[in-house]
């Protein structure tokens, strides 16, 4: 009886996952049949009310990857640096403060980050004159850079917890060995980071997966423009911000719904692939540490 309960819950969960994949596949079949690969390769986005229109997501695709990569780089740089500071240099009290702050930050809804990005970071970018560095620089300060910066900050608590856990897991004897060799803080960090490089890679992949799927922050800070951002201070669209801003028109333009579903399917595939890879890698936390007892020659 209980088993039935539990099993049916499991089946329902499977059904939900299947529904997600199936719905998207069915909805996107139309546009993929019509456009095939040019859906991904073309930068032409022209909705039409009468006929089908043409939808190419090349531009948002590129921006998605750019924002993802940039945000991941920012998150990783900040995380690794913070972890090294906390483990090699920081006194105990500071460690606790930063740990609490990181925890609070991880709990904040993304819309809070988005609001902050819009009200603080975008004006900063605008006023620092960074927009004028670009040909089509954003007048509002909303840009690829702004989005990547805020998303990167949002990702930092999680990335640093992954790296920090791995760093903590390094057996104490290696720390003693490094001290006995007279290694200074940054010299120890170099060796220890080498031992946890798998976790750093995992953190990067997991962060990238989340960055690619992030909608709220990006929609508020990227400037929603069909643009190829050769320069980071220009506005653009990512796939997620595109979906977010265009869904309302789905009723007007017959082909749009299918296009958005196809875009969503792409997003799902990208996010799932990077996250799955990241979780696999994170399994082996510290590189090469083998516990062996008395062994033979």
């Amino acid at each position, binding site marked *: 009886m209980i088993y039935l309960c539990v099993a049916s819950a499991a089946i329902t969960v499977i059904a939900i996952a299947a529904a997600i994949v199936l719905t998207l596949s069915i909805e996107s079949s139309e546009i993929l049949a019509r456009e095939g690969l040019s859906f991904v390769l073309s930068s032409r986005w022209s909705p039409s009310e009468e006929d089908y229109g043409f939808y190419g997501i090349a531009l948002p695709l590129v921006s998605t990857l750019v924002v993802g990569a940039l945000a991941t780089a920012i998150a990783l740089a900040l995380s690794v640096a913070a972890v090294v500071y906390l483990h090699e240099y920081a006194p105990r009290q500071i460690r606790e403060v930063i740990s609490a702050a990181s925890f609070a930050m991880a709990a904040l809804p993304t819309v809070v980050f988005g609001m902050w990005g819009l009200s603080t970071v975008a004006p900063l970018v605008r006023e620092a004159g960074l927009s004028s560095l670009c040909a089509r620089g954003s007048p509002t300060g909303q840009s690829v850079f702004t989005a990547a910066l805020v998303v990167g900050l949002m990702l930092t608590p999680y990335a640093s917890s992954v790296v920090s856990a791995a760093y903590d897991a390094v*057996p104490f*004897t*290696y*720390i*003693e*060995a490094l*001290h*006995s*060799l*007279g*290694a200074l803080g940054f*010299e120890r960090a170099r*060796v220890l980071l*080498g*031992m946890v*490089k798998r976790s750093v890679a995992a953190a990067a992949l997991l962060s990238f997966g989340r960055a690619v799927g992030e909608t709220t922050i990006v929609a508020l800070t990227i400037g929603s423009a069909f643009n190829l951002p050769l320069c980071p201070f220009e506005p653009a669209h990512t796939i997620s911000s595109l979906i977010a801003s265009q869904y309302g028109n789905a009723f007007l333009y017959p082909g749009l719904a299918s296009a958005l579903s196809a875009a969503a399917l792409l997003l799902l595939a990208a996010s799932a692939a990077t996250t799955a890879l990241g979780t696999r890698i994170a399994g082996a936390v510290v*590189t*090469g*540490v*083998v516990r*062996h*007892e*008395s*062994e*033979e*020659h």
Partner: protein
Amino acid sequence: MRAPAVRTQELSVWYGQSQALHSVTITVPRGAVYAVLGPSGCGKSTLLRAINKLVLLREGARVEGLVEVLGVDIYRDSSAEGVLSRVSMVFQTPNPFPHLSIYDNVAIGPRLRGMAKGKELDDLVRWALEKAALWDEVKDRLKSPASSLSGGQQQRLCIARALATMPELLLMDEPTANLDPVNAAKIEELIKELSREVTIILVTHDAEQARRLASTGVLLFMGRVVSEGPISSILSRSYSSIIQSLVASARRQQAA
């Protein structure tokens, strides 16, 4: 008269509330193999780590008293770091950095100190591996990761790593405890060889090993010095009977 390799006076170490060493006073003469003997938990490892300040890495560690290494008061003198760079350590469980190659493991100490580069570094690494009786076994695979070596080889690699910085004092924390007899014997050979050039402080729970290798030493029990001096006088009776009577008198004291 040169200063002794190590001299401690009234050395006490606490980990938080519990006291690991009580007023330990010892003298380690230069060029000797000095054994630190005692049952487990007697403070041998703590004493060793008090000598190269690794004890400070532990939570809530506190050190009182004097520790002089090669004539320098390492807890108060500002040139402590300089003198400690002439001290190396080998640990109980072999701990070569697993992701680094054999070569890089040996080279790490010299590299940090800028002791040698290029060809000179290659020669230094070779020298250290030869001294550690490992060269012949690894000379064709210096780039392989250290984790590919067996336990006994890894310990010899750690010895090479410790020797590469040309220390004057070598601290060894039960270096053969986790090895099989064949490898243990190899390492004991090594220690005898090395003792001609380096002062060695050897922590061991194996009285016979102390008799074989050491000239002088100290017997610790519950963080206190029981006896110090030539090995023959510390181990005038059988080791087990010494320990038995120590344990018995400790019990009597507790009951009282």
